[in-house]
């Protein structure tokens, strides 16, 4: 996943795209809420809704994209296509020191995550393949998936990764580390002889990673609240899947302690400034989703009331509108564009999570499920709209979204 977007791109990304909207809207509802104007936080033209029912009525109907076998097949081809496409070397134009690069010897035997544009995308692409073959064991591409997994997750590959990470400082921490743990959980939980072998190969790397992450969060003084990789809440949220599967109590304790220390006192999240122009995650919704797994349900619900602005208020409005990205076409904008496409999936996934935690009669649950569906639809439309900047990771976020607790059909 990529990291490039200038403020100018960001402003343009937020520009109204009336035409694009008209195409995307499923046109079943009444007027779509006006696309966000200008910079984040700018007042929008529409008056605020009277209440949550008025907001719900204003939302177009949408059918959430679901994961079936044919979806799974094409979603699997994206990671298959990038897993062995080597990452580019770092920039070599130098001020003083000119670098000459060559791939390390025998990298196919000694490393695992050298494809898919960057390290964390390589890790989460493997997670995607695992998840898809686990759900659909007779997927037509299952044999080639297994072949790739065998080659990448062999014992020597994992040992090489661990050796590299031990000397690599903050490289890929916390985001890539969190994905390593998520992947380990997925493989460990797969009742399959090959998977059990891969899980055993991964275990030393995962155990080391878990210890590092516990230490990292325990000593972190304040959270990163951005909408990209270093976001603290997102990494913790992902790792909870590992904690639950492996029963890793020390890591659970570190996450719970850190989340409470960082977030328990938070009030009135700044939803009105979301998203920044290259965000691929929603800081407010992600924090809420994390807290839903850290706090007792009752305490969480009362915390949530103080934390999220009313969904029908102007402050919440940016989260009711999937970001329009079709206008971003210049090559230098594709990286940031891919983030905004992925943002739709990430928002959708955590919206579904929150809807799942709310009491059934809570009107917010229905709104969140509808918004999640609208975001999911939007993400699927953008999937192939950012070239390799998108295809190397968006499949992962699509699958991740589709696995979130969906609206009952």
């Amino acid at each position: 996943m990529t990291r490039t977007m200038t403020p100018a791109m960001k402003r343009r990304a937020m520009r109204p795209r009336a035409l694009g909207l008209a195409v995307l809207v499923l046109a079943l509802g009444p007027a779509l809420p006006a696309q966000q104007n200008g910079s984040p936080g700018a007042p929008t033209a529409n008056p605020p809704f009277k209440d949550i029912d008025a907001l719900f009525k204003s939302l177009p109907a949408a059918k959430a994209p679901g994961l079936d076998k044919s979806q799974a097949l094409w979603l699997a081809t994206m990671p298959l296509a990038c897993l062995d496409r080597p990452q580019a070397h770092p920039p070599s134009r130098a001020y003083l020191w000119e670098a000459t690069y060559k791939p390390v010897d025998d990298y196919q035997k000694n490393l695992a995550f050298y494809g898919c544009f960057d390290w964390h995308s390589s890790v989460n692409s493997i997670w995607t393949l695992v998840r898809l073959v686990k759900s659909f064991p007779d997927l037509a591409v299952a044999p080639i998936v297994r072949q790739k997994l065998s080659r990448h997750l062999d014992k020597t590959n994992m040992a090489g990764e661990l050796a590299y990470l031990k000397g690599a400082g903050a490289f890929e921490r916390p985001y890539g580390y969190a994905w390593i743990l998520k992947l380990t959980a997925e493989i460990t939980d797969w009742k399959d002889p090959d998977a059990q072998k891969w899980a055993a190969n991964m275990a030393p790397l995962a155990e080391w990673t878990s210890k590092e992450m516990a230490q990292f969060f325990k000593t972190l003084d304040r959270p990163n609240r951005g909408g990209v990789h270093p976001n603290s809440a997102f990494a913790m949220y992902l790792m909870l899947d590992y904690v639950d599967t492996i029963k890793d109590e020390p890591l659970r304790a570190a996450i719970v302690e850190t989340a409470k220390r960082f977030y328990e006192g938070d009030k009135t999240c700044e939803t009105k400034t979301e998203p920044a122009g290259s965000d691929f995650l929603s800081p407010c919704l992600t924090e809420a989703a994390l807290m839903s797994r850290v706090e007792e349900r009752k305490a969480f619900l009362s915390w949530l009331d103080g934390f999220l602005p009313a969904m029908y208020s102007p402050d919440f409005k940016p989260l009711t509108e999937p970001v329009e990205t079709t206008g971003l076409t210049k090559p230098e904008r594709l990286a940031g564009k891919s983030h905004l496409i992925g943002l739709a999936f990430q928002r959708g996934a955590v919206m579904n999570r929150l809807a799942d935690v709310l009491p059934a009669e809570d009107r917010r649950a229905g709104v969140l499920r509808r918004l999640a569906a609208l975001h999911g639809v939007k993400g699927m439309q953008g999937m192939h709209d950012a070239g390799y900047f998108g295809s190397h990771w968006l499949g992962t976020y699509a699958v991740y979204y589709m696995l979130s607790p969906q609206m009952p059909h």
Partner: protein
Amino acid sequence: MSPTSAHGRWLLPAVALLATAGAARMPLAQEPPRPPAQNAAPAPEFKDVDAFLASLPPAVVKPLEPQSALLFTALPLACLDELQPKPPARPYFWDVTYKTVDNYDKTRAFYGCSDWHTAVNATWTVVTLLKRYPDLPVGGLIREKLTDHLGRLNLEGELSFFKDAGAFERPYGYAWLLKLQSELANWKDPEGTRWADNVAPLAKYFADSLLAFLVDLDRPNKAATQANTAFALGLLLDYVDVTHDSTVGRVTSDTARRLFQSDTSCATETEAASPEMVSPCLAEAALMSRVLDQSTFVAWLDKFLPPVFSVKFRPLASVSLDAVGTGRRGGRGQRGGAPSAPATPPQPKQPPAGGERGAGAEPPKTQEAQAAAAPPGGGAGPGGGRGGPPASPRATWTGLAFTRADAYTRLARALPAADKRVTVFQRLAAIHGEKGQQGLADPAAFDAPWLGTYAISYLTLTGGER
């Protein structure tokens, strides 16, 4: 010199007078190693501004004079030709070998002193000192270095490099280059004029590029490092004070007002949690003192800073050079801060893929890896960038003392004379200035040539020169 420096000439005597005014040594006067701010024991809340002022220790700042000027030239002279280190991290998946670019000493100007911006401000330091003390015994040596580094070809090489370097060193390094240019341009000296002419095209390119950058910037970076937007804008105003470049002045002021005028209740309680060299709250306040008219500024400041006698203000009242801090900041606490300059310039010939590490909205991975290799807080000092020797916590605290002293001096100047905070800010400036000067005596300072730069910036601002 800033146009207001004459106004500042009374400041040091005034501070000295205050110092002898018999203020009792209250708890703040002692200097136990201060624990991290957020863990500090509940502080007494003072009744009012007078009570707070009475609690502050006296402080005396030694003025700049030829002997200290000589010492301040030694650090830059010793580092200007010491090559910046190779990037330390071994990139994932790649074996890498390094060599210096061909003829770097002819096609580059600022390749010493740990990193680019430190090389620039080291150059500014020797220029500034030689201008004020033309009889320095090292004057000839300084001219020799400047001749070697500021030749026409060196600067042409810099310009051609920067045209393809993306966000590298922007805005902090750019602002320092402009400050250097302003010092050269008003130096009545034939060689100075020649060097100014050589630097001018690069300065022009940076000024234009910064204008575009600032107009597009929609969120400030509020980190406690040189990436801080308010801090960099203050440097730009220094340049404007000397050159009267009205375009840069207008855009800088407009940007400051647009980004900061609606800010209230600065989070003073989170300041100085770990060694850091900029006070985000004070840097922002000092900047606003320069772009708002007095009554608007006073009203803004009242909402922005807590009362000086409140507990909330306590972390800003002093700095301990021995504080350990908790060592690591959680990234930028602010959401969606401005992009920080990448540690290494991007590869322009590559597809945008290459730019991923170069111009992202977050610190690039290579920088993360480098920061991790440094001891806690090491990345906070300007010496810690780009794999240079990390600044020791003590050096970083010393830098903070000077940048705060500078900010307090500006705040004191901007308030109406009758405002009781004037005296308080003057005293806090002196307390921090004195503390900074203590820090300079530490051997750690020799690895941090930028400390002298900050000391001189502050001392020349107050007119503390002889």
